[in-house]
């Protein structure tokens, strides 16, 4: 395949997200400006200007009308996708890290970091349909997690919120009361910071990637560990294919290997694993730096990766990907 290279960001990429229809790709980077691209040919549509800090994550509503972004400038902003206009800004006391719309786009979960004296929080905000009614008030605030929360997502039917972060533990919280429902097992779970989390298409299972060089697949309702994928590099980004039994892992580089980096550039690869057999299918090389973001297109026929090198690489799969036999 011939990947399409998109160099719209000056700084490392942090997050990639496709809209529900799969025709738009949103990229967030440390350069303050989330960008939207057309997912078929990589043409840039526009950028969202307004943040003053690195943008960590974003999410787009189901109708692709609204975009929410979380940034290190201690705000989460709501944008109009089509024009780039900033609609609303939620202010926090600490950098906002993870954002996600709930099903129905009437709620959003935002996490804040443990910054100075502030504990990390998970906050649920109402999203009003009419932007004039939008307020900053939180429907729910969850505290009680020690380490930085890297990802917080909604569980099935918006009943639960799933968090994962620096303390390597996945927690499931009740989204109405904020009560802790489940915690992942310390022995079988990750041993180091969980850097990324991604849900399957039907939200029945999700994958987490961790700096302990593995990724794990979990059941969303019971938090049972289903599968483990082992790799040689710390994992920064993960995603599950919406159509095939494939997961993809993207990673970085161990500090001690830095001096032995292959002299050929473009060696950082996104590794594909068979979701059920846990075996490696193959790797796609090309990035000049660690991969920080991965996203499958909802049609399962392409995926994009964002790296530390500031590039987004959009790959449309060849037919041999679909006929791979394990």
């Amino acid at each position: 395949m011939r990947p399409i290279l998109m160099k719209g960001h000056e700084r490392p990429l942090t997050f990639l997200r496709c809209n529900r229809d799969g025709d738009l790709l949103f990229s967030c980077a440390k350069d303050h400006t989330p960008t939207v691209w057309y997912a078929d040919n990589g043409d840039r549509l526009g950028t969202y200007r307004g943040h003053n800090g690195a943008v960590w994550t974003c999410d787009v509503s189901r109708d692709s009308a609204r975009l929410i972004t979380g940034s290190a400038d201690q705000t989460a902003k709501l944008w109009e996708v089509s024009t780039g206009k900033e609609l609303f800004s939620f202010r926090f006391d600490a950098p906002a890290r993870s954002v996600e719309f709930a099903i129905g786009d009437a709620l959003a979960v935002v996490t804040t970091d443990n910054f100075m004296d502030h504990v990390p929080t998970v906050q649920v905000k109402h999203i009003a349909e009419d932007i004039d009614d939008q307020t900053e008030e939180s429907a729910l605030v969850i505290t009680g997690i020690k380490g930085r929360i890297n990802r917080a997502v909604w569980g099935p039917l918006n009943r639960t919120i799933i968090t994962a972060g620096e303390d390597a533990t996945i927690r499931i919280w009740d989204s109405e009361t904020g009560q802790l429902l489940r915690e992942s097992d310390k022995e079988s779970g990750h041993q180091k910071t969980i850097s990324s989390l991604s849900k399957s298409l039907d939200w029945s299972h999700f994958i987490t990637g961790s700096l302990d060089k593995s990724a794990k697949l979990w059941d969303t309702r019971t938090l049972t560990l289903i599968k483990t994928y082992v790799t040689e590099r710390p994992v920064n980004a993960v995603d599950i294919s919406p159509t095939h039994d494939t997961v993809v892992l993207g990673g970085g580089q161990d500090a001690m290997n830095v001096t032995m980096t292959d002299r050929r550039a473009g060696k950082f690869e996104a590794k594909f694993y068979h979701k059920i057999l846990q075996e490696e299918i193959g790797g796609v090389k090309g990035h000049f730096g660690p991969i920080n973001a991965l996203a499958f297109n909802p049609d399962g026929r392409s995926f994009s990766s964002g790296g530390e090198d500031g590039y987004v690489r959009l790959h449309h799969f060849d037919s041999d990907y679909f006929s791979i036999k394990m």
Partner: protein
Amino acid sequence: MAAAAAQQKIRWGELEEDDGGDLDFLLPPRVVVGPDENGLKKVIEYRFDDDGNKVRVTTTTRVRKLARARLSRSAIERRQWPKFGDALKEDAGSRLTMVSTEEILIERPRAPGSKAEEPAASGDPLAMASKGGAVLMVCRTCGKKGDHWTSKCPYKDLAPPTETFTDRPPTSDGPPAPGGPTKGAYVPPTLRGGADRTGDSMRRRNDENSVRVTNLSEDTREPDLLELFRTFGPVSRVYVAVDQKTGSSRGFGFVNFVHREDAEKAISKLNGYGYDNLILRVEWATPRPN
């Protein structure tokens, strides 16, 4: 209007002879020959023309399916959106989006039993040094491997043969794999697709006479190795690993001798031999036979 009003109250007795519009029941019915495999559809109708003649009208249409539209309707609308933000001042020459010039493949992982397993199997100090990930140190003057540094040796400045054990061989080069997913692994001729298995035992012995040559210069190719090694005896096969992307040699290759003794002689004579400004390392390819 008058015509419409008149049509509402038809009295057959009042109809004029050539008022054919209302005599449609005299015409044969409309026939539709549905879309065939080419998508052709025929509709045969009958009507009266202005002179009152029966006229047969055949309409042929081709029903063609458009190429599968990938975009939903809202996606098509989004395609029409004007650019905003930083994309406004984008000119045609900004080249933010480019198609990669390289073909990127999903590189399958190598099957077990391929080259990367060899260092573990050889078990000599050479392999142990490489397992630690350290750069291989071979003293070439005295020939002792991994024992001491060549501080006094005149060839100390030359680059040691990196990436033979530590690195994985590039997956895009190498002889065609036996139809399986192992791209780039060296597959002995006996296991390749279309291999002739009749001379099996002889060939297997041949593969045990395989000699690995490392620290080759970038320009070294098969003919060079052949010329260098043929003086020791008949050579059945030579191979040099070439990086598909750059076209230069990856620094190592294999030579298969017909006779074992020739291979032994080659190893002893050529190991440490200076060739194209580099010191060759020549040894058995597989864990030392006997």
